[in-house]
């Protein structure tokens, strides 16, 4: 039973990982929202968010990157760029599921 649970978790994680690079971001977040309710304490979803932000975000030498500057010399500019959209999104989904799950009557507590 435990092995079946682990296997289910791995399969769902792999499925989500593949979808991350195939689907539009908003559709992927819907799948992620469903999965955090299927799997208990799915911390790995934040790691998926990290991979997405690292792959799609524009890296910069500064901590927060650059924004509000001319794109013609963006690579030299220092400013602010919010590049944690997926990380924050997955964190919110995870914490919401952690708060809601114990309060849902139909949810089978693991």
């Amino acid at each position, binding site marked *: 039973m435990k092995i079946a649970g682990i296997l289910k978790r791995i399969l769902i994680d792999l499925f989500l990982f593949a979808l991350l*690079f195939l689907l539009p971001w908003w559709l992927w977040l819907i799948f992620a929202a469903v999965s955090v309710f299927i799997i208990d304490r799915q911390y790995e979803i934040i790691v998926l968010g990290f991979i997405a932000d690292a792959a799609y975000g524009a890296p910069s030498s500064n901590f927060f990157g650059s924004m509000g500057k001319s794109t013609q010399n963006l690579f030299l500019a220092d400013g602010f760029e919010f590049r944690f959209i997926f990380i924050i999104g997955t964190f919110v989904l995870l914490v919401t599921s952690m708060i809601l799950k114990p309060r849902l009557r139909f949810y089978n507590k693991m």
Partner: protein
Amino acid sequence: MKTIFLQKSNRGRSRSLLRILSAVLLLFFVAILIGFAPDSSNRFAVATARPLWLVRTFFGDKLDFLTNFTRPKSNLIKENEELKRELDQARAETIFYGALSTEYGKLLSVLDRSLEDEKNFGKLGTVLAKPPQSPYDTLVIDIGRAAGVSAGDLVLSFGNIALGRVNSVEESHATVLLFSNGGAETQAIVERSDLSLVLTGKGGGGFEVKLPQDADIAVDDLIVLPGLLPTPLGQVVKIDTAAASSFKTVSVRALANVNNIRWVEVKKN
């Protein structure tokens, strides 16, 4: 000896708090990782994603059914009609462009500069990832330092339409920041009136600029990047004029739809 245990509800609450705390710690860890080692994180993430992106590129439009099922049929018919009209218009413009190009070549030869030199053909790259796969206005392309790409290089599509500039380069891939990236400012010129302006990116291929009421700009005006051979960037789609204000807000739409781009040309800065 008397032992005091936590009540069941308290135990549940502290367990819940512990789980949320673990999530917060993980959040900080990955945020610090991405913040302090953006290049290494990007290399790792792109290397992980590359096989899947290649599969997507290989299958091309065949995977679009995953998103197309959400679109109503009436929208598709409307879009089809608009595309047909645009195609007819583009055919006519191509003929006109051919004539202008020949004339321009002659003018440059008078100045002892060839049109080929001026065009400075760049490297061709395949787009691995593009919006709407990510909420960022970025493209990931499959050519990098090994192909001579460097940060700041201009990225074009469909021959001569400006998309953005290379933001970061790795050995075998590069990240392109689109001109329409939210908050980004780009110097441009209205082709008809030579009016200089600074476009502010709004994301998703949109730009906005505030101009004085008497500025010479109209809907359908072409916006280009400054240069001897002007590079088209966008077209004016809407002008909001408030009677009480001394400024008008001009909305510009990028000429290239990044959702449909498969190849780009990277030109030396």
